[in-house]
């Protein structure tokens, strides 16, 4: 049983389209994240949610809108896709608020988005 699962794993789309990536975790964690890995493999946090509340928003364009319907799900919707949005998007989860969070994030397998 996959701990953190993302769908789709691969997504190819045209500029200007709107797309969503879904993430679910079955670990009972209360904190979920979206990280972006660019073409040079550099990983950077985009968003963090704790108990469905947005905690971190790292100056991501407002075309990106995360939504957390419950603690186990964190979806990423992207409007008006641009070429520069091509990347691998990783969902992750962890347990614990600040001070308890030991930093061990459990990552999904990533969703490779290609914008043509």
């Amino acid at each position: 049983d996959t701990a953190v699962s993302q769908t789709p794993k691969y997504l190819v789309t045209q500029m200007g389209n709107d797309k969503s990536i879904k993430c679910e975790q079955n670990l009972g964690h209360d904190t979920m994240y979206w990280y972006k890995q660019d073409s040079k493999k550099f990983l950077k946090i985009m968003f963090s949610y704790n108990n469905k509340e947005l905690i971190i928003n790292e100056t991501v364009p407002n075309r990106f809108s995360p939504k957390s319907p419950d603690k186990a799900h964190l979806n990423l919707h992207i409007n008006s896709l641009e070429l520069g949005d091509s990347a691998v998007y990783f969902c992750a989860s962890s347990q614990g608020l600040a001070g308890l969070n030991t930093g061990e994030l459990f990552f999904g397998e990533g969703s490779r988005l290609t914008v043509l």
Partner: protein
Amino acid sequence: AQTVTQSQPEMSVQEAETVTLSCTYDTSESDYYLFWYKQPPSRQMILVIRQEAYKQQNATENRFSVNFQKAAKSFSLKISDSQLGDAAMYFCAWMGVGTSYGKLTFGQGTILTVHP
């Protein structure tokens, strides 16, 4: 802002030999965690080892160990008895304690090749 630097874009090692991957970081915080994550070709990010900054003792996980030099802000990973399955991209990461809600700052990564 915190930065993490991995100065070795690529490293290679013979099977059964030992290899050390370098990582330096810059932070003004006194309490934090450091990590090494592994990303094999499957893309999944896997935690290899974690070090709490307040602990002087270097962390060890089977064939993986770290050399943590807090004053020098250095955190290297040693892989002993290298195996073909160790081939992957390795990322060093930093996380502050208390307020970061799991916000990891990653280095650029080091590609490790293991030769049979």
